[in-house]
């Protein structure tokens, strides 16, 4: 498998544009060129603004995954989840896998905290797992986490 790495905002946007063709294979094709412009990223990851801290997803993913068929991942957003201001969804994507979209998790204010823990399949080699959180007032916020997978699980 040819392994491509997505480490920058520019690369992410390029893949999102390609995703207009590739992602519908998964049946969850929600990313396309029109949406790509709407993504928010951390301008300075070491010095987040209040808005970025409130909306950027936090990813807990081991730096090395032994078994790519059982990669544990935890996602949370430090968001107040009020009745009129809440995280609508969190989506997990890895552009280098044959099945790029892992899942989309929809939340309501009744959740209290946008949190999900599960296990996903990742292809072997190095990859960047992207997570997109969507706020009902402030749009989509994307962040990524790098990992190395010893044995691919796709």
């Amino acid at each position: 498998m040819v392994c491509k790495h997505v480490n920058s905002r520019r690369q992410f946007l390029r893949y999102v544009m390609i995703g207009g063709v590739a992602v519908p294979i998964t049946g969850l094709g929600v990313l396309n060129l029109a949406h790509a412009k709407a993504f928010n990223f951390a301008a300075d990851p070491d010095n987040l603004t209040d808005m970025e801290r409130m909306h950027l997803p936090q990813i807990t993913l081991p730096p090395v995954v032994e078994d790519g068929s059982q990669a544990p991942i935890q996602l949370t957003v430090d968001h107040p989840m009020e009745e009129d201001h809440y995280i609508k969804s969190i989506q997990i994507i890895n552009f280098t896998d044959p099945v790029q979209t892992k899942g989309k998790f929809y939340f309501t204010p009744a959740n209290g905290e946008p949190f999900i823990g599960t296990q996903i399949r990742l292809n072997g080699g190095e990859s960047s797992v992207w997570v997109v959180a969507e706020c009902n007032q402030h749009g989509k916020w994307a962040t990524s986490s790098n990992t190395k997978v010893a044995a691919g699980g796709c």
Partner: protein
Amino acid sequence: MAKNIKPPRMRIGRRIKKGETFKVKVRFEHPSFTGLGQVEPETNPMFNRAVPVTFLRNMLVYYGDDLVSRFSMTSAIADNPLFTFKLRATKEAPVKVVFIDNNGERWETSGDVKLS
């Protein structure tokens, strides 16, 4: 029902205070195959459809009668997944989780929320 599928199981914390969030864990022993394979990994690294795809497509979370969360998944979710999510404790009511796989089969599990 396939032999290697077992009914889902739910765990809810015991000490839950009104207004606070609590964790719910749901384990479901259900296989998941992307169905993809590499015919010739050395010369042609492209994936193609090797076996029929099997996966959990949807997970619905009800708190009382309200649908509070919906998870749409693909075949890239692991075998026998353990899902952890949070809910805000607003009432004493059952939490029900419904799974639907890509063949339309349906399973559910539930647990009671008791406020302390």
